[in-house]
């Protein structure tokens, strides 16, 4: 692959990729270990004519991002656990009002202030369920600097195409690690669907025929439409309980559900004949990969699989990957979160085991190997 060779941090890669994806607005509030994203963008965005603002808190940052997106800007915010908790109310707003936006959460050890500089993967379930009420959401989690770059661009594309908030779930390791990456020369960039009707006829929440996603006009372009966090009709006007309300909620949630197949992105190694598969995501997948390779070298039938998409969880894909295994081991830097989904996906076909570590250190290949050997013996 050709392209500029760079050596950069995960957080930097995220910032660079965001600009590449078309980011023109960032609002944030500093918090370790996400701050380098804001710091990079404070430097970079003005140089490309974009807007960087440090808001008074995370709630305001999320709000500003939604406001900016409504004017047509591609907008992002970045935070870490405590700030991610604070953003939840407005993330739900973006989900219901179908405002594209990307929210980066660089995971550190929680709960609460926790261990602010230590890595964790403790916000996996929160990323799916953190705001009140049913809502659509897409959550991506990279395991390398290069994948951070790619998933950031994909996050924008998904967000724009589906008009859904996308959460980019980094962890402190991926965020602060520096790796070589080759900046791709070509990337495909998607934009939100634009209205095809003139202002007078525009219905902001009516999907085009054959689609489930309504086209989105920019504020200031003469469409004069209403956006609300109340349930609303196709015209955007508030509505009460009833069939229309149910239709709205089902439609916005189906936008993601229906695209489960498109939203699968897994990496699989040596799984065909594996009796045990180590399945992971984020930085932990790096250890899982090494552990599985080490064990293969030693002759064990161990496979490796990882997913880049956390939500919607790739249950179907995982069932296929693990079709021949008797055990799937899920190492995570939490007390066992994604393993809950793995269980639901696989309980009828094989044994699912959790391996968790919550001391603020990365899981090592060695400990995964030891656990696998215990299981296999």
């Amino acid at each position: 692959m050709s392209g500029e060779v760079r050596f950069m941090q995960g957080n930097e890669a995220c910032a660079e990729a965001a600009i590449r994806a078309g980011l023109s607005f960032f609002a944030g509030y500093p918090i370790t270990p996400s701050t380098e994203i804001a710091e990079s963008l404070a430097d970079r965005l003005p140089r490309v004519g974009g807007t960087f603002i440090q808001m008074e808190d995370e709630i305001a940052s999320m709000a500003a991002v939604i406001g900016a997106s409504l004017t047509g800007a591609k907008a992002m915010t970045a935070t870490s656990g405590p700030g991610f908790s604070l953003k939840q109310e407005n993330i739900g707003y973006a989900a219901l009002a179908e405002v594209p936006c990307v929210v980066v959460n660089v995971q550190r050890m929680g709960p609460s202030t926790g261990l602010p500089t230590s890595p964790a993967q403790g916000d996996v379930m929160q990323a799916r369920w953190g705001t009140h009420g049913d809502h659509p959401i897409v959550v991506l989690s990279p395991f390398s600097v290069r994948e951070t770059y790619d998933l950031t661009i994909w996050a924008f594309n998904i967000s724009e195409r589906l008009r859904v908030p996308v959460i980019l779930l980094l962890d402190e390791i991926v965020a602060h690690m520096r790796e070589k990456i080759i900046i791709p020369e070509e990337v495909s960039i998607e934009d939100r669907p634009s209205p095809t009707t003139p202002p007078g006829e525009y219905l902001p929440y009516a999907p085009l025929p054959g689609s489930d996603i309504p086209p989105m006009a920019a504020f200031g372009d003469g469409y004069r439409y209403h956006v609300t966090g109340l349930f609303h009709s196709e015209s955007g006007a508030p509505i009460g309980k009833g069939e229309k309300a149910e239709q709205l909620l089902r439609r916005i949630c189906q936008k993601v559900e229906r695209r489960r197949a498109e939203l699968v992105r897994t990496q699989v190694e040596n799984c065909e004949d594996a009796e045990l598969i180590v399945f992971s995501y984020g930085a932990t997948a790096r250890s899982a990969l090494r552990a599985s390779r080490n064990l293969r070298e030693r002759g064990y039938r161990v496979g490796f699989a990882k997913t880049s998409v956390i939500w919607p969880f790739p249950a179907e894909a995982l069932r296929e990957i693990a079709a021949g295994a008797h055990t799937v081991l899920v190492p995570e830097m939490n007390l066992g979160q994604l393993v809950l989904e793995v269980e639901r996906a696989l309980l009828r076909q094989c044994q699912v085991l959790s391996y968790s570590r919550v001391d603020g250190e990365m899981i090592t290949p060695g400990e995964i190997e030891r656990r696998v050997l215990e299981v296999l013996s």
Partner: protein
Amino acid sequence: MSEHIRGYLRDQALPHIWCAGCGHGTVLGCLLRAIQKAGLDQDKTVIVSGIGCSSRATGYMNFDTLHTTHGRALAFATGIKLARPELKVIVITGDGDAAAIGGNHLIHAARRNVGITTVCFNNYIYGMTSGQYSPSTPTGSLATTSPYGSIDIPFDLSRLVQAAGGAYVARATTYHVNLLINLIAEALRVDGFSFVEALSQCPTYFGRRNRRGTAVDMLTWFRDNSVNVKAVSKLPPEQLEGKIIVGELYRANLKEYTQAYRELVERAKGGVKR
């Protein structure tokens, strides 16, 4: 003129949800007249509100309108203004929305002097949730959460905003419709953060529970208890006790935020760091 404000309303959304005699409709009318007076481009004006009876106003306004989450209107509006500075951005908010849950965004928007005109519909109560006391409820008032009379000391909202920053602060009541129109129109002309506190009546909750009578009685009370800021210096302190000071309260000449940002972008593009 009256011909014109019709075009500023979404007629299919009317009649509005507000109670009979609620002052919010009056404030909305004044805002629309001020928009007309200030000659704003309807396609380049965005109205943002929070949550509350007052904040429902955006649903009736034929502009790009954004009805956000409780207290956060100014933060959403800041995003809009910064992302597209050529737009005129107006925030509609209530005393609860702006000063209780939203107090921080209010003082920060003022501090930054970002070019947003905020009209706060201050009715001394949380109307939407049926009458709890707000940070502007006068001490001693009855509300559903102050059955023994509120012991909280209210904010002087205009004074608070002025201390936080901003370029323009003014106050009027729903009795002073012409004054209110003029003050809002002036606020819209100001380059920077402008704040108009529009005192409004909630006959349903604040009025009823505090025996303030009908909407008409409440307006009469506004009339009889207001003093124009121009007259303040001429009056002895006793006569100002408990009075509402109306008129333009503050004006400052500070650089508007998006203007400062534009200059920053020039510097950045020119490679200059400071």
